[in-house]
């Protein structure tokens, strides 16, 4: 063994004996009590206690430790949900769009066929009144967001009635045109009378259906019904006065013109 080794051994021995020599008895209990009183009481209790029992009764934990962890999770989940709802509101349709009634604008009553003549002769631009009663040009079809909400079925039903009404008006316009020709020639075709009966029954059905919710359309159907009743009651034996009444109804009420206006343009 060299001198250095011997000196190292002596230093080691001397240091072990003298350098910061700890007491023979380790103050376990005192330190454990201090640990229990420290901020790590809960964890210390779960880690095993040296015979001194778990947490002292009546000790007050810090506020953060008194709140169960699930409360933090619940608050975080609620905040996340609220954030998601807020984002959804920001990205979704505006409240104005949500509150706006869905357009039930019948295609057949669109303004595309409104002629200056019809406007000038007394149809006070009622054609331009939309289903919801608001004036002004109707909104273009499909301009709003297409949504399938709880009212989707009702909207589909309204469109079906619109189509049926359009078909009925086309047929009525054809029948009235034919009848007007016969009327000018002073004759009465029996087939036209039968045709009128069918149209009359359909007109009454439409008047009792959602198709008549639109006031413009309802008035048109009512006028059409009146004319059809007169036509159905007309017979070859009817007087010239009866024919003049029908002619006056067609002319004064602009029934035929309004029919043509209300008939949807093909392809729309």
């Amino acid at each position, binding site marked *: 063994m060299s001198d250095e080794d011997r000196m190292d051994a002596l*230093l080691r021995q*001397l240091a*072990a004996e*003298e350098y910061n020599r700890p007491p023979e008895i380790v103050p376990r209990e005192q330190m454990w009590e*201090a640990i229990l009183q420290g901020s790590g009481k809960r964890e210390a209790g779960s880690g095993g*206690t040296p015979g001194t029992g778990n947490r002292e009764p009546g000790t007050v934990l810090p506020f953060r430790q008194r709140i169960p962890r699930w409360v933090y999770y619940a608050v975080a989940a609620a905040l996340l949900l609220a954030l998601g709802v807020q984002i959804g509101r920001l990205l979704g349709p505006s409240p104005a769009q949500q509150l706006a009634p869905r357009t039930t604008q019948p295609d057949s009553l669109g303004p595309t066929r409104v002629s200056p003549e019809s406007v000038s002769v007394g149809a006070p631009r009622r054609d331009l009144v939309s289903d919801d009663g608001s004036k002004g040009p109707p909104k273009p079809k499909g301009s709003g967001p297409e949504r399938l909400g709880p009212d989707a079925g009702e909207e589909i039903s309204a469109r079906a009635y619109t189509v049926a009404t359009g078909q009925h008006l086309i047929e009525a316009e054809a029948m009235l045109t034919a009848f007007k020709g016969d009327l000018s020639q002073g004759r009465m075709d029996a087939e036209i009378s039968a045709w009128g009966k069918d149209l009359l029954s359909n007109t009454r059905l439409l008047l009792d259906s959602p198709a008549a919710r639109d006031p413009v359309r309802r008035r048109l159907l009512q006028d059409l019904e009146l004319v059809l009743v007169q036509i159905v009651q007309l017979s070859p034996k009817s007087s010239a006065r009866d024919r003049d009444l029908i002619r006056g109804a067609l002319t004064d009420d602009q029934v035929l013109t309004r029919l043509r206006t209300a008939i949807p343009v093909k392809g729309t």
Partner: protein
Amino acid sequence: MLYDQHVDRVYRLAFRLAGEDELARDFTQETFIRAFQRLKDFRSESSFGTWIHTIATSVSLNGLRKVKKFRTRETSLDDALTVGAVTRRAEPDLKERLKQAIDNLPEGYRTVFVMHDVEGYTHEEIGAALGVQPGTSKAQLFRARAKLREALADFAGEWVS
């Protein structure tokens, strides 16, 4: 129990490093408080003893650094060497000079010296506790011993003989 199994050794190491009972208690308590708080994070890749000594070493060294900021040293190592060179005292003076020499070692050297030569930790345990390789621990111990021999060189003939 975990506390009973490890508290003595942790306290002894803390006392050796701190040199005061009060500081040693504080470091030991802080060590176990942290250990129990992080017990769920403990992985059985290493033994609990190694893990808690890692905490103990960290707590003690950090605590001592804070303490040293508020204390002034009464005697520097150079002063001690000067005194020792002038007069040769009896063994009580040697003990005091040895203490001063160890206290004045760089922190890494002193820690390794205390853990290995004083408390008997292996280099593997020291490496795990300090987060260094065992070879690093050996090298630091070698240098620590060399510095101590140098600091106490005037006593060498007396001790070796």
